[in-house]
């Protein structure tokens, strides 16, 4: 999987403007809805610290392995993506994700996962819109094949 891209987060630059999550839900769902975004921005008010939660795009995704419905497939960008029509809502993917970045929307009964905005010219919309570079698109390290 040499040359695959992934979104890298830089929490220290984040200002919680939520432009990434708003743009994500707008692009994918046609509405601005933080609970339908494929990434989340959390704030710890006591410490004034932010955390951006987004798929790490593992080389061998546990979520994909865990899915009993074959609803998670690798798309043209090399990213594991959920086909909602095949998803049985069992939750195995979210439970398997080691980073807690595969989200379940209770109101919409849907599992949501970053697909790197497959089909969008200009790459992932969250990366494009972030005003402060808290999200960057980077190539994953190419592993030497023995």
């Amino acid at each position, binding site marked *: 999987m040499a040359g695959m891209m992934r979104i890298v987060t830089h929490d220290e630059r984040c200002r919680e*403007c*939520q*432009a990434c999550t708003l743009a994500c839900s707008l692009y994918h769902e046609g*509405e*601005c809805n933080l609970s339908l975004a494929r990434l989340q921005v*959390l704030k710890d008010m006591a410490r004034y610290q932010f955390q951006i939660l987004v798929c790490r795009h593992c080389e061998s995704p546990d979520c994909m392995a865990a899915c009993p419905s074959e609803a998670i497939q690798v798309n043209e960008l090399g990213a594991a993506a959920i086909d909602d029509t095949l998803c049985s809502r069992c939750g195995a993917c979210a439970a398997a994700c080691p980073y807690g970045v595969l989200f379940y929307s209770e109101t919409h009964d849907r599992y949501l996962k970053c697909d790197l905005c497959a089909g969008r010219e200009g790459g992932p919309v969250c990366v494009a819109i972030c005003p*402060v570079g808290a999200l960057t698109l980077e190539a994953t390290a190419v592993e030497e094949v023995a």
Partner: protein
Amino acid sequence: MTGGWAGRILEVDLTTGKISTRDTHLYARDYIGGRALTSRIAWDELPPDIDAFDPQNVVIVATGPLTGSLAPTSGRTVMTTLSPRIYPRPWHTHSTFGGWFGAEMKYAGFDAIVIRGCAPHPVCLEVRDGQARLVPAGDLWGKDARHTQIALKERLGPQVQVLTIGPAGENRVRFSTVQHAEDNSAGHSGFGAVWGSKNLKAIVARGTGGVSVAHPDRLMREVFELGTFRIAPFSGALYTTIYDKSKTASKERPVCSQACTFNCQVGNYGKSNDGRRIPGHCVGGIAWMTKGFMAATKYSGGGVEIPPSENFGLCEEAELHELCNSLGLDSWFRLVMQPWFIRCQQLGIHAIRGYPINPNDVFWFEDFMRQLAYRQDLGAIFADDLMRAMDELEGELPDELITLGRRLEFAFGFPAHREGRFWDEEPLPFWVISAMMYASESRDPTIGGHHSALLLADFVLADRELSLRQFRRLSEKVWGYPDALEPTFEHKAPVAIWSQHQHMLIDSFPLCDFAFPRIIVPPESRDEWVAAEDMTGDLEIDLRLFAAVTGESLTRAEVNTIAERAFTLERLLLARAGRQRQMEEEWLVPHFKLPCRADGTAIDAAGFSRLLDEYYAARGWDLEYGWPQADSLQRLGLEALIPELEALRARVAQSPPIVSPLRGL
């Protein structure tokens, strides 16, 4: 209507505990949302002749159709109520704030919340996914605003957004705030005290819904075309010594509002004593509490001496800033009280009623803030604001100090801003435009001022000849005549009225007044500005964002009518509270007779009267009271209000005028 509005307005009666809703669309067509919407509800439902602490006083928290969407800077909220800070009698006024609360309220299904009554014990209003309930908040009463929010987030989840009062609001300090997040607040108008009088400690919102968008692709395109991380406010690039672009872009700055994608120059980070990063914005915030800014608070002219405020250093300022937000005090009190106390010392007065004053000592200042919030010791005298403290201390202190205190509080209980004398450099004609706005609005025209005055004034201060040349072209395009921004006293009413209407809209869509309306193209450097032949900006962005989100296409003429309708209602609310021309002249002339700090220009009583004539006439208001007339109400679809307006005219003719303590100065 396909997008934008949540569709419902929540109504809460704290006395009876009754909770109900009404349809937002009763108002959306004629008032859009936000501040314009509140003007209608307040006119219909705020009883006349009550005190600000009367249980019948109504607090409205409102967002607009863009709130919660990706429209840049739209995460704003407006709050209105009968303000206890207005001197001597309250009237209806507003305050807008950024943050994340308004968006969460929309996601929970409500465009606005209308609150009346008084709870029998402290309560918290919880709003969650279309439901609302009142929960006892006795355990939160007494907590500061920061820890109240942290406690509620621990209890109800980190994603809840909270509005709350601190001890100052609980103790009805007349300049207490309603706080949100680190340093967002409904500030000037004493909203905290009104909440305190209602036993309302906090409102918590949590929603898992969204804001529907009529044209997602158009919205996305507008946002990207606007550009992310553009400098705001639009004069930011002028200060090349401070705002070197290469440094600015990499400088970390906080945002104060959801969906703000700008590189806003009015925010900054500081460090607390325990090492936490703290965000701060604008006056009172660590952004501006620099040595240079504090030195610029000095004023000398027309027999008035205002010493500069002391700067305590960035760490200390960061601490004071957080303390102010935690106690729930309007940080502007400092720009009023600190120089007054320093002047006391200069005149040899080192104690008031036995309480020592030492305003240049950070520890004294911190204690004083706590005393204000809890109405203890010296704070008990000043918690009703400087204007009322001067009434209390008249005869005990030299007349110079009493008069200075009244001048500093300025007009109607609000501190000066954008008026060219005490704190902002506003050369002619900008302070003239501000003066007209002061004379016709419920509070300092901070919001309108940011664009009509301060920002364009910055260009004049940077290069007078160049900017005046560019302004002639700009004026022709925006206002239809070339001398709108010439440094004269004439023909300024259209600019004041334009500013007021644009900002009514900015507060109603809503958007941030530091970024919109984009009257000029924000230069990214001083060189770019100098090279520009035409600096006129894109003034239709707000309408395009509105259309993309709501699916409604409104023309500039249509939204201007909406703005004028709401502004007229605000003026009628002032008329109902007894505000009229005599009061405006009596309170404002003593201030505008003082020389402008930027260019020494001033105006006498006759000149000020001519300004009012020009402004009232341009508005179609009468020249006797400065009130709207029947034909205006007819034109704006407010004809049902004509009988009450006539009754108010009959009443004002019989009533004794409200006399200014600065009369005759």
